[in-house]
């Protein structure tokens, strides 16, 4: 089937989408946006987190067809058009919160959403907000540092 989705501000027409295909597959394999990652495809790891109409979702749990007519924003759509990094992206870099980086796109979208809702979260709020995002490399300490750092920088 043909599916039309607004992705990172641009209307995209995706052809030959199979009914069972997830939004994650459509983004990665059809829209050329591999930023959202596939680590479990079961809604457990948060690596595939993207915005759907402004709310973070696991793209692996959304059928591509369900996203038709809606607006999706991925990690690739967070930096400004001229390529400048978002403050969350800068903070993850500066805090050393990136090792293998496979969890990073999902964590960055989840943090971006948290800071939009709660500008100055305490540690308990950060842990709660990021509890759906697994990271196997960092032990999360520097991810906490990154979120604190981002919260303290101008948006």
């Amino acid at each position: 089937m043909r599916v039309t989705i607004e992705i990172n501000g641009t209307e995209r027409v995706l052809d030959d989408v199979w009914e069972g295909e997830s939004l994650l597959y459509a983004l990665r394999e059809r829209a050329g946006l591999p930023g959202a990652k596939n680590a479990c495809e079961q809604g457990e790891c948060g690596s595939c987190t993207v915005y759907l109409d402004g709310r973070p979702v696991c793209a692996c749990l959304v059928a591509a067809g369900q996203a038709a007519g809606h607006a999706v924003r991925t990690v690739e759509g967070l930096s400004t058009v001229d390529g400048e990094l978002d403050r969350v992206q800068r903070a993850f870099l500066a805090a050393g919160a990136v090792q293998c980086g496979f969890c990073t796109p999902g964590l960055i979208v989840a943090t971006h959403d948290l800071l939009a809702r709660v500008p100055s979260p305490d540690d308990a709020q950060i842990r709660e907000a990021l509890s759906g995002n697994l990271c196997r490399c960092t032990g999360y300490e520097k991810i906490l540092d990154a979120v604190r750092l981002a919260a303290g920088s101008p948006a």
Partner: protein
Amino acid sequence: MSTVPARTAQDLTADVAGGIGHSPQRPDGVLKVRGEFAYSSDLWADDMLWGATLRSPHPSARIRGVDTSAALALPGVYAVLTHADIPGPSKHFGLVVSDQPVLAIDEVRYQGEAVAVVAADHPETARRAVAAIRVDYAVREPVTDAAAARADDAPRVHPDGNIVRYARIRRGDPAPTADVVVRGEYAIGMQDQAFLGPESGLAVPAADGGVDLYVATQWLHADQRQIAPCLGLPQDKVRLTLAGVGGAFGAREDLSMQIHACLLALRTGRPVKFVYSREESFFGHVHRHPATLSYETGATRDGKLVYVKGSVVLDGGAYASSTPAVVGNATSLGAGPYEVPNVHMDVWGMYTNNPPCGAMRGFGSVQAAFGYESQLDRLAAALGLDPVELRLRNALHQGSTMPTGQVVDSAAAVREILTAVRDMPVPPTDPGTDPLGLPGGAGNTTHGEGVRRGIGYAVGFKNVGFSEGFDDHSTARVRLGVVGGEPVAVVRTAAVEVGQGHVTVQQQIARTELGVDRVVIPPADTSMGNAGSSSASRQTYLTGGAVRAACRAVRDRVLDRARARTGVRDGLDLAGGNVVDAGGAVLVPLAELLADGEIDETAVYRPRRTAPMDPDTGRQDFAHLQFAFCAHRAVVDVDTELGLVRVVELAAAQDVGKAVNPGALVGQIHGGSVQGMGLALMEEIQVEGGIVRNPSFTDYLIPTILDTPPMPVEVLELADPHAPYGLRGVAEPPTISAAPAVVAAIRAATGRPLTRIPVRPQDITG
């Protein structure tokens, strides 16, 4: 030559100034935070096909027949291959022993063993084709008890018997006695590395009849060595390039989809991509060896260790993988980081029909440490001594003799790291009443009633680099040239970046040695010499050593040119892109010197060569290159009624010799600690009758940010004079000491013996 796929590994050019001892940003960091870093699962070629694998549902069975006709008849299916399609000469692979069939040959030895592979135009078509393959199995009773598999009359998993390796230590008195003796039996479940980036890669058939494979691995040359003979190709026609790696932790040291993708690419003439699902990933890589351990520890009344007798059975599962090395570590390190005059160790690594086990962070040491550290706590209780005090009285130090007879020839800071964690401030004792800060967390299971606090300590240690006579080495090529009027160093190696930050370290070394800011790291590939594996905490030491050596060769030639040009003979140095004199004054810019041509040097770095242990006594003066130590103090709150644990704090102290990149190494200590904590509390692949019960992230739990406590870290820098910059390997020791420290803390809170990890709620509630 083939065309390079549309999306593939990138040169890393981004850099932030910073040499040895600094923590510059990762050169791949900007790509990673933008979502633009090309992981192996992101690779893409125009006309590529998707691979899929048919795996055995049975842990042990004969195969009477395989019928692929229905699969081949499906539209969109381009190839279905079984073992009969493997050109050979080899149809097997294996890291140490070539014992595992690329595709099952007449029998399967574990649930999940690959039987056939398919290439199709959509991953769903490939999955349907796999489902359409008919296999006629004659199911057999699996061998699932590793200890029982040692019996002479046990059914054989492989024709030569079930023992992959037996090793032992016989040191000192053969029948030692002591004032106080404690005995214990311990068990460790099967842990999974659970990296986030699934096994994946893209094989592209080449015009010269060879194949180019872009893949996430830990050791490009070991892959190449095993792949080529199965394809019937010479090594140089199987070219590997590292794609982005989403974590490894040992699980990528063995092959997964590599040979399958190459076979299908060569058969179809099209690029073939594999990406394992999470469930398939659980079957697609080896795990940490489950173990049963039996220890007897004797000491004098004033707490000096007299002897350790240990017997360890490691379940290696269906194929050997790195079991021989795991056995070697559990044997030689099995008495712990202590001075013990009399040691008997007997360690078996076994074949069974359970999932194959091999490398995972800290292998061999993790299992042994749970045994020897639990024993020390038992002994402390029997002696009425403080557990830290008992450890201090027996701490290994520089000049101590290991059970193998090896004398520790650089710092062994057991005393220093133990006192460091002991002396860190202790978190406030009142856990409060917010459920999020209590055991059970958001489950809201307690408001503090039945909650008890406990504190536990442990020390662990690990050999760094490959031991027991392996010719460990690495290779680097460094080219210094001029780009846009600026001196630029290009550092090429085959060393694998798995997330640990090795690419950052390579840049730091080049900046320090060559006095330049700009350092480019092209993707690692097999056109370079062997770098060895990104495992055994060895890459900063080994490839770091090679990069340093190549830089120094380049530097010597630069300085020769500078002497010829300036006439200044002595005290020349490189700094800030210039050749400077002893006072730091600029003599000549590098860019000017390099106008005469760039300088290009390759170096192979070989550290001191280790040697095998004596098979009867374990005796060997130099079995290991280097030892690395970590200590933990765990503080836990335990809901004693429900058996739930919350780790309040997990403090670590580690000697790193030289903090080459302080930020990255603290990140290693954090991540390694949490993997050890996960082993203590929740991580276990549950295997019943050879069948894996929980191959998903829904059922195999790893710590989330809510499970993970604050982790203060103290880093010591006691240089090892034999190692580049004095450094010591970092990544594995934290995983070794974290698990026994957490369990010791739960014991302190509950008084329960807790002889098995992961600790289950019923172990606490009784």
